[in-house]
């Protein structure tokens, strides 16, 4: 009976306070770790999302840059013109197209538009199509000795800005007005 009573003996107040203190301390540490991990996770998710958008832009642009016979970069542009236009030999598709333009809409959406073949056999620039989630705050291009440098500043929902700079080499040399014919 004495043994049973011994077993039923409770914790002292000091013990309980000590244990609660330890538990509180552990919970605080755990919470801090959790919050930290959560923000890291959010940051990584945002980074991945931005990187995916950047990759989507580049993968869409790269083949057209390689194919381009003529590259036109506009300093200022509006809804009827684009920041950059690549023109190439018509690509047979439905409908066929011989050019593609890229730019930013007024609301920061990044778009492309194709120069598509109309029924008469002529080519006309079509509608602007958005294809990424991120907004783009800056889209700049420059050409130097056959190298095309593209700088894109992507804006995430959190307001962070991510700048990507890519370099490309169009495969077909710029042929100018007379198609590059020379003696």
């Amino acid at each position, binding site marked *: 009976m004495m043994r049973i009573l011994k077993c039923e003996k409770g914790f002292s107040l000091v013990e309980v306070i000590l244990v609660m203190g330890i538990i509180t301390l552990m919970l605080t540490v755990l919470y801090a770790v959790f919050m930290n991990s959560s923000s890291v996770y959010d940051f990584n998710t945002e980074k991945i999302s931005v990187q995916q958008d950047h990759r989507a832009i580049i993968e869409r642009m790269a083949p057209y840059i390689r194919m381009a*016979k003529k590259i036109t970069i506009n300093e200022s542009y509006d809804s009827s013109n684009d920041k950059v236009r690549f023109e190439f030999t018509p690509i047979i598709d439905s409908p066929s197209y011989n050019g593609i333009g890229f730019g930013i809409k007024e609301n920061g959406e990044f778009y492309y538009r194709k120069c598509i073949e109309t029924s008469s056999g002529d080519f006309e620039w079509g509608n602007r199509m958005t294809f990424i989630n991120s907004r783009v705050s800056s889209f700049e291009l420059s050409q130097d000795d056959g190298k095309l440098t593209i700088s894109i500043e992507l804006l995430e929902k959190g307001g962070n800005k991510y700048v990507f700079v890519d370099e490309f080499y169009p495969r077909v040399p710029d042929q100018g007005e007379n198609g*590059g014919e020379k*003696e």
Partner: protein
Amino acid sequence: MNLKKMKRQDGSVLITGLIFMLVLIILVGALSLSLNSELKIVNNEHRLVQAQYYAESVINYASFYLEEDVSETASFWTGTGEVNPGKAKEIINKLKAPDLEIISLRRMKDNENYILSTNIRYKGVRDNLMVTFAPFHERLGIFDKAMAAGGNVNVNGKTKVDGPVAAGGDVNNQHNLEGASDIQENADIEKELALLEGFLEEAVKNSGTISISSLEYCEYATDNGDHIILDIDEKIVYITGNLTMDKSLYIMGSGFLIIEGSLNQNNGLLFANYNSDTGTYTDDYAILYFRTGNPNPKMGNFKGAMVGKSDVNIITEIAKGFEIIGAVYSGNNLNVNEGTNVKHDDGFVEVLKKMADKYDIPDEIVITTYKMVDWMEF
């Protein structure tokens, strides 16, 4: 009783351990899945990019065989325009890419252009590429000059030049030179002049060359009383001795006149592709080449190019309205004497090209290179 409790405590440790293990396994599993998926994405990206560059390499390799004749033994192309299977394997070996499969590599002709198209497969990824090459004719820079000399250009009196002048050394007395669009001194043209001379030397050795000891014994020369007409059209006429002139010589046609010995111009002037009766030039260009000596030609109306291996002392009587339409080149010094009038006209380059083709003369004066003018991937 104590032992029993001890056992129960052992049990709770085991369960706690198992739970930890389970959590760890789940974590590792999730990480592995995530990594696996990342790896797949990266591998796929790698294969796509690699396939694209392999397709580009295949086209690059094939572009060296653009003009190859299929009748040649072990040629790169078969009669259908498809690559020889043995050569396709050679490309794979050169690229050290055993996983690469060249499904098709084809050469097509579109007027003057060549189109190469390829379809390759690399680790399950296919890539198609079609590239168009167009011919570009590049020629020696000296052909753009009215006068060029490996040494100095000495302008010894008032002369008129309509076109650029270049000298490996100096252009002396430039104040006498009227109308030159550009004067270039210390120009790097020695090699180009050597190539032109080398080309004309090859012409001398050509089996189709007509060798004569003098104009008297030449069946293409006609004596018209006060002048001699020499027809060199599409011919290489090689005078193995001196060219002695007692009256004016009219060289007619697009061809080569090569003189081995001296030019003894006792009387008369040197004309080319000029009709004195009508006072007009023909469409032809004559190429006159002095192999040795230092010729002192007195020129009438001359349409074509004059090339001297050594010094050339030239004069045209501008007062009489005479002129050289074409170009004058000297391997060493070019002495331009008072009254000389040269108007640059590069039409003679076509004659050089035509003669090189007709007589199969190995030349480096006009090189045809193919450049990429269109690139399509799909």
